């Protein structure tokens, strides 16, 4: 009997301490827990030979293309792309942030983050809370829906941890998640490694700050985890991460046109 009373008290205390259900996080500028605005430069320390120079025809190393993708790689003809006015095929959203480029990121409005890339003079608009407008034609940059990532700690979903509140402190995620569709067919690499119009691009933007050390000044970085899912030309998802360092100003931001070669 006494034990029952104690357990009842325990339950009362426990429920009293149960964590509140998380509230929906504000989106857009109001929900930002990191500042991605400013000028950034891509730091090319990976895949250099496939990014800083146009790779030789047929070289699709590291990209999980399928047989159909291989056929497109082997048929790459930049002159044909130029004749078709498709010089920007290697500057679409799945490739843009992998290119050697500088970025200027600003809020176009409270719910739209704008990314301008100087290499190819391309602009991406990341829409918080938006969906692809009906009838919108596919484009190099497609339509990007953004959100501040919900915390991975969804809680114990009604289990004892939820009742007792013995849950790890749930931080506010500092990640921006972007999903892009409605893409025009393009290239993951300049030498014609393809992605199709069926592609779904998922990206996670993360910010880091490095304090000054004995050998280097303080620096701010963002990385973007890029996942390309293309049922047409890829055998599995293509997963890469690209790195950007903040620049003090836009003095090196130098817009140049697309080039097919």
């Amino acid at each position: 009997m006494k034990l029952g009373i104690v357990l009842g008290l325990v339950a009362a205390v426990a429920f009293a301490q149960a964590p509140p259900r998380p509230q929906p996080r504000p989106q857009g500028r109001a929900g930002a827990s990191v500042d991605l605005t400013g000028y950034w430069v891509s730091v090319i320390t990976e895949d250099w030979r496939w990014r800083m120079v146009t790779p030789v025809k047929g070289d699709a190393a590291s990209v999980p293309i399928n047989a159909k993708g291989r056929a497109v790689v082997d048929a790459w003809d930049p002159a044909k792309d130029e004749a078709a006015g498709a010089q920007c095929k290697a500057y679409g959203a799945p490739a843009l942030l992998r290119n050697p480029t500088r970025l200027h990121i600003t809020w176009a409005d409270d719910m739209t983050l704008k990314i301008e890339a100087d290499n190819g003079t391309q602009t991406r608009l990341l829409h918080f809370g938006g969906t692809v407008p009906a009838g919108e034609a596919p484009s190099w940059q497609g339509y990007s829906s953004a959100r501040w990532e919900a915390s991975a700690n969804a809680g114990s979903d009604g289990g004892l941890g939820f009742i007792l509140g013995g849950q790890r402190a749930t931080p506010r995620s500092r990640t921006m998640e972007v999903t892009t569709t409605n893409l025009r067919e393009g290239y993951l690499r300049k030498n014609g490694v393809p992605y199709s119009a069926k592609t779904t691009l998922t990206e996670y933007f993360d910010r880091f700050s490095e304090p000054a050390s004995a050998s280097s000044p303080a620096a701010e970085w963002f990385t973007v985890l890029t996942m390309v899912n293309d049922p047409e030309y890829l055998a599995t998802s293509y997963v890469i991460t690209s790195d950007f360092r903040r620049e003090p100003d836009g003095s090196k931001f130098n817009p140049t046109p697309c080039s097919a070669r």
Partner: protein
Amino acid sequence: MRSNSKAFLVALMLCAAPLLAQKDIAGEWDNRFDEDFLERIPGPDIGDYLGIPINAAARRHAESWDASLLTLPEHQCKPHPSDYGIRGPAQMRVWKEVDTVTQQLIAYHTHIFWQAPERVIWMDGRPHPPDYAPHTWQGFSTGKWEGDVLTITTTHLKTGWIRRNGIPRSEKAVITEHWVRHGKYLTVATIVNDPAYLSEPFIRTTDFVQNPDQQIPAYPCEAVDEIDRPQGSVPHHLPGTNPFLKEFSQRFGVPEQAATGGAETMYPEYRQKMKTMPAPAKAAK
């Protein structure tokens, strides 16, 4: 009975206190090799230093490096240092060490397939040891959560490598890592600060995918005499005598000057500078 019930009540109330850890990174992780596959698995070309902010000392070190060094018995079973290990064949297990009484996180441990190195990332706030403490392949790592990002600082590493073609990383280096999990993907951003061999910090990012059913194979390694050599012989190239250094640039058409690396090769504007450089000589057939 009464005292037992009170103890139970107190224990439950203690359980209700939130713990200080964030996203969980424990589990089985498998490599993704969608970037730098040729460098990471078959291995880099001799003379390819592109995209690494090396200084002249590092370049001299790399130019004197001979791959036959790896056939010496004392080099055959060495693991990758912790700042390179995740870049190689790195099926990885991460597990937590938790205090059995307080249930507070003490450390993360990692095990990697290739050469089976195990590493400790201390999460209990302990300081790094003094400079004179031993330097090891895995170094001394401490971690802290910054929001939902695990930031790790590593010191006390033995001299290691940034690229497996002789580009060195010194024992003076300080490594910062940021481990970020997104669903079933884990990304590790590694930043190397090395006052001895780098003129700028070097960053690269490595991706893993969760694989709960992964069984990491054992990695037995036994050093043997692969090549008969005179006692004390160490494969190397004296300055100016390495005949292989230009093969990479000739094979891929990269200007010889560019292939020697350095900080400026990391930035977009270097593409313009390369246009002013002579094309590499054709390789002899």
